[in-house]
């Protein structure tokens, strides 16, 4: 089957159809709710105050040519990717080291476990005070959001490797390095993927809040990130823009998760075909 027919099949499948129906029904209900004053004579609570999707779409169309809006995308995305990558680069080796070296684990793990339950947002004030630039402090908070999740997944994944794999590898003449590279690493890969996916979700929660609190970072009011975009719209009373910002974050988060999932599938090909 070639790629085009596979895509056509996928797009015309029952699941896609249901997804489409789901979104359309959601939008229609929302539109009806927002316009409840027009057809009911009174506003429904909460939803009656929310801008209607048509109005949001209208504003959104205007924003498509706005540099600041796209800059917000870029800033948030950049922060998420940067903080997330840092969490991976530091978190994966640290987790593996903790898993394979008991002494290192015993020394590091207790402190790690004290710091881990602190919500990333609780780090925001300290982060702003102690990092020289706002940009760094936002990146740091995002890093923390993903870091602990990645580490804890790597540690538990690597520690739960079936002992028989080590025994077989040893019998067949593997060196310590071989065992690390050919057993520990691939056996931990599924946990790394899960940790990354969960960590990625947390970074989007964190970036928005961090931007709201810190005031958007270096770029100021123009394009300070999607979180700041929402906050700024709220201050300015541009309610449609708030919704645009929210949906934008939804789309960005979804895109990131999809990217992680397919990257994860690439690194764990043996799981895909089950």
């Amino acid at each position, binding site marked *: 089957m070639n790629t085009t027919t596979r895509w056509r099949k996928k797009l015309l499948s029952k699941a896609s159809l249901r997804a489409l129906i789901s979104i359309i029904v959601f939008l229609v209900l929302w539109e009806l709710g927002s316009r409840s004053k027009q057809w009911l004579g009174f506003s429904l609570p909460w939803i009656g105050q929310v801008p209607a999707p048509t109005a949001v779409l209208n504003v959104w169309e205007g924003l498509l040519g706005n540099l600041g809006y796209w800059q917000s995308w870029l800033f948030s995305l950049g922060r998420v990717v940067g903080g997330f990558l840092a969490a991976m680069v530091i978190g994966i080796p640290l987790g593996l080291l903790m898993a394979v070296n008991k002494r290192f684990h015993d020394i590091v793990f207790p402190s790690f476990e004290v710091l881990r339950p602190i919500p990333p947002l609780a780090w925001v004030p300290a982060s702003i005070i102690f990092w020289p630039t706002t940009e760094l402090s936002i990146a740091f908070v995002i890093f923390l959001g993903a870091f602990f999740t990645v580490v804890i997944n790597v540690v538990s994944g690597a520690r739960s490797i*079936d002992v*028989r794999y080590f025994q077989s590898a040893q019998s*067949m*003449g593997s060196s310590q390095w071989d065992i690390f590279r050919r057993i520990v690493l691939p056996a931990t890969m599924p946990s790394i993927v899960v940790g990354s996916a969960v960590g990625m979700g947390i970074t989007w929660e964190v970036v928005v809040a961090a931007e709201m609190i810190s005031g958007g970072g270096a770029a100021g009011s123009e394009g300070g990130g999607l979180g700041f975009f929402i906050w700024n719209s709220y201050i300015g009373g541009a309610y449609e823009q708030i919704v645009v910002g929210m949906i934008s974050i939804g789309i960005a988060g979804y895109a990131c998760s999809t990217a992680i999932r397919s990257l994860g599938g690439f690194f764990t*090909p043996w*799981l895909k*075909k089950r």
Partner: protein
Amino acid sequence: MNSVLQGSGNTRQIATQGAIRIEEVVKIYDPDGAAVMAVDHCSLDIPAGEICMIVGPSGCGKTTLLNAIAGFHSITSGKIFLDGKLLCGPGKPQADPGSDRIVVFQNGALFPWKTNIDNVAFGPLMQGKMGKKEIYEKARSMMADAGLSGTEQNYPGEVSSGLRRRVEIVRALMNDPKVLLFDEPYRALDSLTKSVMHEALLEIYYKNKVTIFFITHDLEEAIFLGHRMVIMTTRPCRPKKILAVDIPHPRDYSVLTSPRFRELMDETVELVHEEAKKSFAAGEKEG
């Protein structure tokens, strides 16, 4: 399958390596605390090239013995030799694991992240005895011999559990082991698949000169496969009775209906049942 079985003679005399000698082996777990005796002064001589079936209920301590031979666990006292060379004994409680003794595990230990052929090639690649190309050629031909052609590029998770076991045996044989240690490898298989696996194992055995140390709790399996069967007492584990299975090799599944097979079953079932009752009463789990 039958043609191969009939075509090969008695390979038992051909094997010159792989004789195991177990001398007065004792294993006590947690000697300073609960002090559970798993193996009690167990002695056993297995000549090179024999299929020796170790029969006992789950948790009787037979896996402990296997782990000691493989070098995965230490022994408390006694000695184990391979071809006259000390594997473990006084001053060296734990044998070094080595490619001369390969374990085929209970639930299989193929690396799920490697394709079947990469699994099969793993041992020789690690040992660096041959070039990569030669290794893969050998792997391909051995897989073909075992009826595994076409599954080379599959992951273990993509093929049936019966095929997986076969891949694992081929992976073990690629190391040119002197001894294959089987830890109830067919336990999880249904009886029909099992019967196919038994014939396949014998077929592989007739082509390769190895000693087989095979743990099982399945009497039928023990009689069908073994040259000898060693019935173990339950914790602590020690040979209770050693029986020669005097049905000539090569065997195929028609053996199961032979009168001698029935006789051997009748002789042993009572012995094994006794131990199983003891084990059940002790409430032991597989250890």
